[in-house]
């Protein structure tokens, strides 16, 4: 499939839109940016070898024109698209691809995404500071790059689509050094026109974009530091096109009650699950019965109601739109009596006292209080520790730090749409270490092996089989119940009347809040 076909016949070229965010945009360096504000901005400034069909989770080549996977699944050969130019006018070559991968894995870059590339040959040397260059990445010719893996990795094409692998021009990186993130130069649909720190960023259409006809919009202004409630007021006033932080909970019902406003809300799924972790290495949660009891005690419907029905109750780690999600899985139904019984069996008929950690931004403390009340009903007295994000993360990474954590606000939003993304760092043994992200400290060697096996099924034809395998893994996880999945959040994006383009662009699973490259405005002549 060539990119040209995806052009929307109704789309008009031109116009400018305004998007608001509350928090600062940290950095636009693709090797570093890992916030949800800069995530899709980076996607519009830079390109990777791979990408997804807009509005879907379907992989497709991007800077690569085509790719080949060796039969053992360990060698990937990418043929690069010709005539792709960086914003500085220079043509992108295979050297840039290698440079970018070398750079993101180099510990000096301090990339939070370096670990995604662990399967590339020579990663350990680079990560350990022994080498500056990944042995597994070879420039075959200026438009061909070959990547050899140390093990088969079914997620590797996804890895080539995430921001961290996006291609950067060496000369610009060296020119700006640590400030490259403030002066991003990529091959993307937009280029940076202005960045007034703390106030606004302006993206300008990249006229030289290799994907002819894209993007549609001439100028995107991101206004920073806008309270979501105020952003909504401004949207209603016609000053803002998309409030980047979505519809604030306090205004949700008001918006949905007004048919005119409701018509401008787009709803979609999200690759997200909200769950409660239970520290499987801390008594009494080392007893599976206790964990199951917790699973049964939580009234998920009520919690969903609390957040204005902006989510669907969950019974397994994977969100519904993720391959491997098991529709048939029953999970643990809400059953207080059974939960009590289980607690009794576990030797805690009177319940026990424990702590529930939660990040301190609305609605998370509220959800935690709802959970707290549900637990109290079966005798578990959980006191809430509502802390800043960093402190919750710190507690979770400590072996005896946090018995229970509500994941909201820090919840796992998939980096890429693949079931494995929900396992490794947060449920696998590798994450159950000091400072790790496996807050349940759940380590099941057998499942780790199964996961490795699933990920070595590289052949796209066998994707179905692989998904099934993952489904089984998560079913096993649920049998051990290190988590109590609570809900999968739904996305509600609001847009101004002039915004055009398919609704799915506004709930694009990988572009949050919207896919800037493909949306357009209706009011240009």
């Amino acid at each position, binding site marked *: 499939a060539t990119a040209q076909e995806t052009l929307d016949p109704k789309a008009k070229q031109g116009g400018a839109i305004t998007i608001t965010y509350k928090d600062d945009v940290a950095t636009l360096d693709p090797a570093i940016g890992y916030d949800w504000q800069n995530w899709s901005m980076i996607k519009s400034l830079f390109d990777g070898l791979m990408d997804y069909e807009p509005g879907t989770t379907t992989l497709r080549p991007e800077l690569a024109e085509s790719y080949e996977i060796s039969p053992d699944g360990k060698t990937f050969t990418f043929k690069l698209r010709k005539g792709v130019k960086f914003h500085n006018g220079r043509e992108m070559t295979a050297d840039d691809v290698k440079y970018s991968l070398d750079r993101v894995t180099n510990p000096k870059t301090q990339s*939070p995404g370096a670990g995604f590339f662990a399967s590339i040959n020579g990663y350990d040397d680079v990560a350990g500071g022994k080498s500056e260059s990944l042995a597994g990445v070879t420039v075959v010719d200026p438009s061909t790059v070959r990547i050899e893996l140390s093990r088969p990795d079914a997620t590797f094409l996804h890895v080539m689509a995430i921001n961290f692998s996006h291609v950067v021009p060496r000369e610009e990186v060296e020119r700006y050094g640590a400030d490259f993130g403030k002066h991003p130069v990529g091959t993307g649909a937009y280029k940076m026109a202005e960045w007034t720190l703390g106030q606004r960023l302006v993206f300008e259409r990249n006229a030289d974009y290799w994907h002819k006809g894209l993007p549609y919009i001439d100028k995107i202004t991101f206004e920073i*530091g806008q309270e979501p409630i105020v952003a909504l007021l401004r949207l209603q006033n016609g*000053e803002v096109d998309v409030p980047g932080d979505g519809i604030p909970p306090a205004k949700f019902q008001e918006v949905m009650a007004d048919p005119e406003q409701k018509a401008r809300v787009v709803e979609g799924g999200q690759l997200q699950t909200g769950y409660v972790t239970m520290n499987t290495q801390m008594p009494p949660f080392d007893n599976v019965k206790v964990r199951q009891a917790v699973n049964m005690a939580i009234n998920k419907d009520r919690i969903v109601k609390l957040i204005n029905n902006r989510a669907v109750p969950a019974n397994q780690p994977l969100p519904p739109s993720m391959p491997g999600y098991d529709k048939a899985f029953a999970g643990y139904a809400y059953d207080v009596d059974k939960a009590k019984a289980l607690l009794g069996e576990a030797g805690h008929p009177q319940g026990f006292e424990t702590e529930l950690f939660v990040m301190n931004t609305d609605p998370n403390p509220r959800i935690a209080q709802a959970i707290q009340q549900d637990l109290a009903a079966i005798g578990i007295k959980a006191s809430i520790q509502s802390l*800043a994000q960093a402190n919750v*993360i710190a507690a979770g990474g400590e072996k005896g730090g946090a018995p229970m954590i509500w994941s909201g606000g820090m919840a796992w939003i998939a980096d890429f749409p693949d079931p494995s993304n929900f396992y490794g760092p947060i449920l696998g043994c590798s994450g159950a270490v000091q400072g790790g992200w496996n807050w349940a400290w759940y380590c099941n060697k057998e499942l780790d092996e199964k996961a490795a096996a699933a990920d070595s099924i590289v052949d796209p034809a066998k994707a179905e089989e692989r998904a099934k395998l993952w489904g089984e893994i998560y079913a096993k996880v649920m049998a051990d119940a290190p988590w109590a999945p609570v809900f999968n959040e739904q996305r509600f994006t609001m847009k101004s009347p002039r915004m055009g383009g398919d609704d799915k662009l506004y709930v694009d699973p990988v572009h949050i809040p919207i896919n800037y490259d493909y949306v357009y405005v209706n009011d240009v002549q």
Partner: protein
Amino acid sequence: MIAYLTRRLIQAALILLGVSLITFALLYLLPADPVRQIAGRSATPQTVESIRQQLGLDQPFAVQYWRYLTNLVSGDLGRSYIQRSEVSELIVARLPASLLLMVGAIVCELVIGLSMGLIAAVKRGSATDQALMVGSFIGVSAPQFVVGLLLLYVFAVKLGWFPIGGYGTFSHMVLPSLTLGILGAGWYSRMMRSSMIDVLRQDYIRTARAKGLAQRAVLFGHALPNAILPVIAMIGIDIGMFMGGIVVVESVFGWPGIGQLAWQAIQRVDIPIIMGVTLVSACAIVLGNLLADIVAPFIDPRIKLR
């Protein structure tokens, strides 16, 4: 004067040194580990250690602090852990807006607070006095977020007199300054009332009245300069108290000041930014106090700069 300034500036430098030491120590003691935030979820312990080393966070406290100080001398506040930019750059970009907002707020405080206090003192015990007192307590007790949104809703959205948030022109400044100033106005009006009542019973007020001066001349010409002195001393203190309000007001009005920067940094334990903001605010406070002290002799000639 120059000697005085020199001495005060040296004092200020010492105070800033103390502030930096205490803040640095407190942040050092924080339970959250910034390195893990930088390294991300998929990082191996090895990577984490490597980053820790690069940032020098494996060093003993004294070494870290000394390095911070030496960098500070050359104007280097370090790089943000999260944003990865120079802290000085981030602060410089946002400081003018905050200072502007503070100036606006101080003006609002003084204008509203002093006039309320003055009227209350003159009409002491009357219904007006009671009403003003309730007003000043509402100012002190009302959550600024709500006040800000309310003002925004009424004057910007409904009446359209002011823009809905933003930064740039004078009309952008009015509502945020007012929101921030309302709290202080409450304080000032109480202080002013109190010191005004005191001044109004002094002999020299009787003298002024014996001259046949108009009430206005007595109040503004004679009582105000005497009563305002304790209030002036408060302006320096005020700047420190603004910090809390600035966070809220700036976010409601989309005002690009350091309040939001600080808030985000606190949420995410971005220590270099917290340090930087603390030091910069400490500077502002110290300078504010200095200014208040320098102004005082102009109001009360008996006060000597010492």
